[in-house]
């Protein structure tokens, strides 16, 4: 994985020194809050419902054991003993003191980490496939290209004050595990008929109050022009994106209002101009980055079978492991969704344990997933049972990946100053209600947001839940039919909302319709797409006899 060179390190160290001085000036009164707020936000420091919240960047979700261990230590030293892994592959701490924030950034910098690009109207931390470099269905490892985007976008002077925040994702597989088409720019690395590597650009997707699926504006940009094409996409947005109305300022609105064809025409014209300026990073830099993402030293000839005589282990293997590109290895996903737990939360001890397990079992490497779980990407099959036992002993053995208990939930009104309703208690109730039926129901991605900003990705849930404020009372809308994969679709609202208990009942009625009507190996989403909304709506709103 990528290790900072002297330039990267100088950059983050300088940023820490800058922020330390800014905090000092805020505390001594040299800076007023209006002056200081944009400075702290550029360093990922928000003022949330209960305290300052620090969002730490995890570029494309990849972490070393040393970095993960530091995240656990920070949770203990500066916070209240836990952290929250987010839907953009980052981690947040909820109880930060302003006067300690520079020390946290210094600790992060000591392991090549920072909080840059986690807030503000800049290009945010780039996300990617959590299985990158480990599975057979990718055409290349997308992370070197995501790293190239990180280097290009960090402190990019032209794109530091965009009309709104800007999110990019890079994948290299037809199986989209990064919600790529729901980003401002989604890039899928592809090969053309001649076998050459290129980038398909999907531009103008997003969730929030106006969810849109990004259209493909160019199916093949030669890979040695990927940054230049990204620059063109951003330039057209920066030129025409609305700055008068923050609710209409995202690129999805621009692409929608200009139309895909006109936006593409302008991008292509800008691209032709930019090509004359030779903006693309030198090929040697990409090769330098790629060398750092070389495969670890896999042991050849390992046994490729597993003893599945322990039913609990067998269930976990079935649900939480994926086939690895190297025989004798598997990809492991650690679910941070125990029954009744808080989705995405992990204690400092759990974070450090996962760091240790990565060191012992996965070549020192971990990934954060956008579904708020942790991946150990390279685990030997002959060591899998021992790993599972250690995870289970630490409360990290939930065997529910992509099932109804594996809920994405934003922090909601329990933590977030933007939220209108709590997300976590609803997730906990659903998790508990369905714990005994998860396996029977099978794959069902349920996602909860506590406000229209959709950090909980409710638009993309097979079942989505949106919390709203109805005259000061929490109310929950139910949505069905969303999907974030290669067949991306946006969920539709079923009808009137419910209270906290009613929404759990409504979810159960929807799953009952599925269980009564599924055919063959259909998932919930397949049955919904075949039957449509009507039978679900009828069951969800059916009046019980008095």
């Amino acid at each position, binding site marked *: 994985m990528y290790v900072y060179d002297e330039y990267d390190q100088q950059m983050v160290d300088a940023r820490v020194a800058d922020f330390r001085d800014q905090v000092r000036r805020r505390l001594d009164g040299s800076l007023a809050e209006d002056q200081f707020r944009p400075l702290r936000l550029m360093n990922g420091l928000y003022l949330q419902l209960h*305290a300052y919240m620090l969002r730490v960047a995890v570029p494309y979700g990849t972490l070393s054991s040393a970095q993960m261990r530091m995240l656990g230590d920070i949770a203990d030293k500066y916070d209240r003993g836990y952290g929250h892994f987010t839907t953009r592959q980052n981690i947040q701490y909820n*109880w930060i003191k302003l006067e300690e924030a520079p020390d946290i950034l210094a600790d992060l910098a000591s392991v090549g980490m920072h909080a840059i690009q986690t807030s503000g109207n800049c290009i945010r931390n780039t996300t990617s496939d959590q299985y990158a470099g480990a599975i057979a269905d990718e055409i290349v490892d997308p992370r070197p290209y995501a790293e190239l985007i990180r280097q290009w976008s960090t402190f990019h002077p032209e794109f530091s004050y965009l009309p709104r925040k800007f999110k990019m994702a890079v994948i290299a597989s037809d199986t989209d595990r990064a919600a790529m088409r729901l980003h401002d720019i989604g890039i899928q690395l592809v090969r053309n008929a001649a076998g050459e590597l290129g980038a398909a650009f999907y531009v103008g997707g997003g969730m929030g109050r106006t969810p849109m699926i990004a259209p493909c504006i160019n199916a093949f940009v030669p890979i040695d022009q990927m940054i230049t094409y990204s620059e063109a996409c951003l330039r057209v947005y920066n030129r025409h994106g609305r700055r008068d109305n923050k609710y209409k300022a995202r690129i999805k609105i621009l692409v929608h209002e200009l139309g895909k064809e006109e936006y593409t025409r302008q991008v292509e014209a800008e691209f032709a101009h930019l090509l004359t300026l030779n903006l693309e990073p030198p090929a040697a830099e990409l090769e330098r980055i790629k060398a750092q993402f070389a495969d670890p030293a896999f042991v050849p000839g390992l046994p490729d079978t597993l003893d599945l005589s322990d039913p609990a282990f067998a269930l976990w293997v079935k649900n939480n492991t994926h086939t690895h590109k190297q025989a004798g290895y598997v990809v492991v996903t650690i679910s941070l969704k125990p029954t009744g737990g808080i989705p995405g939360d992990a204690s400092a001890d759990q974070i450090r344990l996962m760091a240790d397990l990565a060191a012992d079992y996965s070549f020192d490497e971990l990934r954060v997933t956008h579904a708020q779980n942790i991946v150990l990407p390279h685990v030997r099959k002959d060591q899998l049972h021992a790993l599972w036992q250690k995870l289970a002993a630490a409360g990290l053995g939930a065997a529910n990946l992509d099932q109804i208990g594996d809920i994405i939930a934003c922090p909601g*009104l*329990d933590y977030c100053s933007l939220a209108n309703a709590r997300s976590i*208690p609803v997730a906990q109730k659903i998790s508990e209600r369905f714990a005994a039926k998860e396996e029977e129901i099978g794959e069902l991605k349920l996602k909860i947001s506590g406000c229209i900003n959709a950090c909980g990705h409710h638009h993309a849930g097979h079942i989505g839940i949106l919390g709203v404020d109805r005259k000061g009372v929490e109310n929950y809308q139910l949505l069905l039919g969303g999907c974030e994969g290669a067949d991306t679709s946006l969920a539709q609202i079923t009808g009137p909302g419910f209270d906290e208990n009613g929404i759990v009942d409504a979810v159960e009625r929807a799953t009952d319709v599925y269980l009564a009507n599924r055919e063959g190996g259909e998932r919930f989403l397949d049955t919904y797409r075949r039957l449509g909304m009507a039978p679900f709506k009828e069951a969800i709103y059916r009046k019980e006899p008095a």
Partner: protein
Amino acid sequence: MKILTGNDLKSGAVTWWDGQGWSLHVEDAVDVGEHGGDIAAREAAARRVVSPEIIDGTRDGDSVRPAHIKDRIRALGPTVRLDLSLKRADPAAGNWVI
């Protein structure tokens, strides 16, 4: 009643104006009447509070209850981590929010 609340500049902790200074406990909040804006401006300028806000609430005996659920959660702490609440001695504290 009108309640003045905000966050401590250094720690970020939720605080409530108690007539003399800032308290961590909503029960200490006083009715600031028409003076909330002046107090907020003075305290923010002195860097004793950040993001001050005047909210509605009611007093019932020794208890003060902010009118909006968001402010009740600010007063209590996350309803899903009552172990971190300032009202941790009260096992029914979560119900107070609803």
